């Protein structure tokens, strides 16, 4: 029997891939492990892989009101902002992609330009605006501000996704008697779904991890989870590594869940294939 020989090029490529994978995954695994360690096990000179796990850190995190409030704020603010981004961004992107007028190019550039400015440059004006309006340190202020981010990101990524839908397919639906709105719902959205889900997930991760604007727009009530987590490191002289790691785990879970739900939804849409 002939055996395929592993050529050196392939071997090197695989090694590089394995290294990159290790670099990406190891910190996450280490963080997850540290979340289960006592502080003593974390600060030892020799890293410990085998240790007695403890749920104290996680228990501490989940027992704090500030963390739970932060989690609630993050979920509401990011969830609403992404929802608004979907509701407004997707139809806008479709209109720009399919019914371009002479402003289509300008619209696209404007949407992108929203992302040019460093957040710190807009954070202070935004803070002043919300103070004036009287909504400083409230969730609505955060939702509206985050919506600017989600709409622009979703639109920017969805325009090429919609342009990728073959025009003839939509025309066939027109000939089948459907109007422009039905074509959007029944043809463009499902056909472009894979790319659109990516855009939505990306926008969620972007606002979920957002720190600076949230820091500027909240003082106590509307703090999001990243702000709360960062504050955990400022307690006393000893850095509570275990608690920090546990908060990081808590912070990472919702985007994972969100992606899981989205890809599950995707699979259910495209599963019919094999029946």
């Amino acid at each position, binding site marked *: 029997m002939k055996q395929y020989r592993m050529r050196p090029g392939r071997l090197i490529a695989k090694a590089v891939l394995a290294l990159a994978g290790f670099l990406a995954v190891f910190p996450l695994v280490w963080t997850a492990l540290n979340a289960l360690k006592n502080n003593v096990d974390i600060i030892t000179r020799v890293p410990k892989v085998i240790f007695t796990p403890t749920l104290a850190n996680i228990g501490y995190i989940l027992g704090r009101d500030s963390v739970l409030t932060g989690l609630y704020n993050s979920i509401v603010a990011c969830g609403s902002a992404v929802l608004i981004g979907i509701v407004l961004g997707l139809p806008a992107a479709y209109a720009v992609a399919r019914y371009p007028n002479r402003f289509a190019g300008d619209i696209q550039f404007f949407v992108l330009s929203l992302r040019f400015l460093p957040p710190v440059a807009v954070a202070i004006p935004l803070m002043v605006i919300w103070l004036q309006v009287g909504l400083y340190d409230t969730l609505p202020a955060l939702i509206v501000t985050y919506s600017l981010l989600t709409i622009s990101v979703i639109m920017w990524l969805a325009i090429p996704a919609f342009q990728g839908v073959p025009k003839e*397919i939509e*025309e066939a*639906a027109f*000939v*089948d008697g459907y109007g422009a709105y*039905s074509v959007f719902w029944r*043809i463009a959205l499902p056909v472009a779904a894979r790319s659109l889900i990516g855009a939505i997930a990306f926008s969620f991760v972007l606002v979920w991890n957002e720190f600076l604007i949230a820091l500027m727009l909240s003082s106590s009530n509307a703090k999001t989870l990243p702000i709360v987590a960062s504050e955990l490191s400022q307690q006393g002289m000893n850095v509570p590594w275990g608690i920090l790691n546990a908060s990081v785990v808590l912070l990472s879970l919702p985007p994972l869940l969100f992606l899981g739900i989205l890809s599950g939804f995707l699979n259910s849409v*495209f599963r019919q*294939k094999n029946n």
Partner: protein
Amino acid sequence: MSAIVCSHVDKAYGATSVIRDLNLAIEEHEFVVFLGPSGCGKSTLLRMLAGLEDISGGEVSIGGKVVNDLDPGDRGIAMVFQNYALYPHMTIFDNVAFGLKRQKVPAAEIKKRVEAVAKTLGLEPYLGRKPTELSGGQQQRVAIARAMIKTPKVFLFDEPLSNLDAKLRNHMRVEIARLHQSLKTTTVYVTHDQLEAMTLADRIVLLKDGVIEQIGSPAEIYRRPGNQFVAGFIGTPNMNFIDAMVARKGDGWTLTGAGTLLSLEGSDFYLQHGDRVVLGIRPPDLKTAEAGAANLLQGTADLIEFHGNDALVTFGSGGKEISALVPARECPEQSAPVRYSFEEQSIHLFDAESGRSLRKQ
């Protein structure tokens, strides 16, 4: 009553005019083919009938109703696209049923009709599959099923076979012809392939630069081309064109060109002494000359293309490349001298200036 009438139809994109003052009436049950080189406006015209392109000027009516401002779905048409345009996220069943669902047809009837259409087109085993799991020919059949099921007043085909390989194309062409025979639905079919046009059409509409060059049955267009463009476009191998001068000679006429002198009776043509004309003759109309034959075209065989039954012999005569399609057994050797003659009935004469046919009607 005509099924489709276009009167003074114009189409322009900004300053670019694509179709100019086009008039056309298509009869009920007729199979009409729009034929022309790419960019001649044939697809645009079809899409205007479908309602996928705005009509810049003039009027289009389908079944006696002006449809200029009607949506595609309200025109009573069904269309088959070049690249099939199947809905990739739906099963074959749903693809075919999609139009009926819009018409709020009860589910049980949809099922019955989809199955009936699938049976006609041999698609039954594939109803549960997705379009990407089907071959090109099967996908095109689904596209035809999707059009058929709506029992439209008019079928529109936009180069439906050009994405298929040659063998499948022949097969599908026959299927489309059969389908039209049994359904008798008025059909407009766009193609750049003259073989498809000749075999399928009741009438061919030959377009060039957004203007109709000629309308007629395939035989009419082949035998009596209205101008030099039509003559050159239709027929494989292409017609030979020879520039010639007309002179009166007794009761007849002589043509001088391509290094030869040809004498004609000329009663079929409008001719005048001193006219500059283009003589057109199809390669199969050139016959190996017998001794003493008149109207000779001669030279040395430059290029011989063997076709099986026939051979295409290309030779130079008076600095002009001329082709003759002769039976393979009469095929000369490469570089051998050849002599061909023709019957007067088989020639075409065109005005050198306007390209218009000089044949008397």
